[in-house]
Structure formats: C-alpha cells, structure tokens
C-alpha cells in the first residue's frame, strides 16, 4: 500500500503549507493592535499629531535599524519606505547552527519584507527641518511647519 501511505501523508503536508501561505498572506502586514482608520494591509501604522509649530509622525517599526528606513518629505506629504528583515532562522542560543530545512514554524505573525506608505500631512512643512529618531523600534519624525503654515498672531490695536 505504498500509494496509500504517500497519499495519506502528502495532503496533510500540503494543507499545512496552504495554511502557512494563507497565514503569511494575511499577515504580510502585521495586524498591529490598531484602532482608527488604517486600511487593511497597510504597514506601518502611524499616529500623527499637530502642535502650533510642528507635525509629528510616529510609527512602530520593531526589528528595523535606522538604515532600514527611508523618509522623504515633499510639502504636504511624507513618504516612509523600507524593509523589515526576515527573522534569522539559523541563530540558536547555544551556538549550534540549525539547519534551515529543519526549522519548524509554529507561529508566524510578524510580517517581513518591503513596505511603502504615503502619509498626508495636515499642513505644509519645511522639508529641510525634518528630524527623525528610531529608538527601540519606535520611529518619531518631527516636521516643523513651513513659515506660511504657522499660526500668525495678529495684534489688535485699540483705536
């Protein structure tokens, strides 16, 4: 009954692979604990805040080094681009090199690969003054408002 045994084992393998594929496609952009209006499949999630003289954009990018993310600002739009590296499968705690083929994934929820996101800004900003810091997987971008977008205080003269 060679055929039976092969036929019995393979569909299970295939089903498992199929679930893996499905799961990977569903989690290509990790479902961050978000609320709000982020459309499905958009990575990374961002929080945007506005003060009197700056717009700040915060994004959670765990696993990235500063060199893995590219930020460009044009007037009223911010472009976030980068790539999240694959988890290194061969690194083991005790120095043994694991064979990649023998690694069994029990769960794969963290997305990997390239991402690109355009974030509209509420006002025009000064691209030259934009600063960004990536600390412990949290990216904070501070965009000073363009001079013409800052609130202009008008003195009221008494007659």
């Amino acid at each position, binding site marked *: 009954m060679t055929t039976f045994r092969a036929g019995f084992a393979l569909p299970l393998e295939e089903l498992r692979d199929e679930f*893996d594929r499905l799961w990977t496609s569903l989690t290509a952009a990790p479902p961050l604990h978000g609320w709000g209006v982020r459309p499905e499949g958009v990575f990374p*999630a*961002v*929080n*945007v*805040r506005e003060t009197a003289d700056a717009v700040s954009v915060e994004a959670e990018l765990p696993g990235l080094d500063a060199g893995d993310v590219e930020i460009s600002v044009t007037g009223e739009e911010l472009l976030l681009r980068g790539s999240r590296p694959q*988890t290194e499968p061969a690194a083991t705690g005790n120095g043994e090199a694991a064979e990649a083929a023998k690694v069994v994934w*029990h*769960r794969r929820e*963290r997305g990997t690969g390239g991402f690109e996101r355009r974030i509209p800004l509420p006002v025009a900003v000064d691209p030259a003054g934009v600063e960004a810091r990536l600390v412990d997987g949290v990216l904070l971008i501070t965009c000073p408002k363009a001079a013409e977008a800052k609130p202009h205080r008008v003195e009221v003269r008494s007659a």
Partner: protein
Amino acid sequence: MNQQAVMNQPAGTTPATDVAERPAALTFQPNVDIRDLGGEVVFTADIPGSKADGIDVTFEDGVLTMHATVPPREQAGRPIRQEYGIGNYRRSFRLGDGFDASQVTADYARGVLTVHVPRLAAVRPRKVAVRAG
C-alpha cells in the same frame, strides 16, 4: 488562529498554544514568531517602545510568559491620525515538559524580544546511525 496553530503542529512536537488570559486595559498581545529548531524553541516578539529592564520573561510549569511595560511617550499637540494605541504587552504560551527552565535566555534589541527556550538534553531529537549488519 487556533486552527492554524493546530495545522502547523507536526505530530510528536510540543504545541505552543496560547494560554487564555483576560488582558487589562491597554495591554496588547505582541505579534510573535515561534520557531522550533530541535534543540530549542525560539520566540520572537514585536515589543516596540520598551526597555530591557522593563521586560519580564518567566518560564514556570511549562508556561512561558512575556510581559513588557511600555513607558508613556510624549504626546504633544492634538491628534490628527490615531492608528494604534500605546500600552504594555503580555502574552503567554504553554510549552509543556521537556524544557530546561534554568537555561532560558532573553534579549531585547530594536524593539524585538527574542527568547530561547532550550530542550532538556534527554529529550532532544537525536539522529541514530544505522549500522550495516
């Protein structure tokens, strides 16, 4: 999600199942990768915004628990777009027996927590050489 975990479970290996817990307000479950390398099981969790000394990893009675406190961040101005919340992280997995609790190690870098849970030497998979008679 449970279905997927079951499907990924090859016969004879230890399941890494979620342990049901009621999360407190503003405690999130991190996204986790779990890889079985044979000699150990490696957990990789996305925990942005924490610090190494704010993270507790315990392995007790076959249950691995990761808990991370995330300090509040500066929230100046008014929100324009709010797509995620900021809070602590907590998640537990039941691993069962056969692991060496004293050898569990954890590292935190770039907002990612990596936990290595080695198997006891006695239960590690061993390749048996077949001798020709």
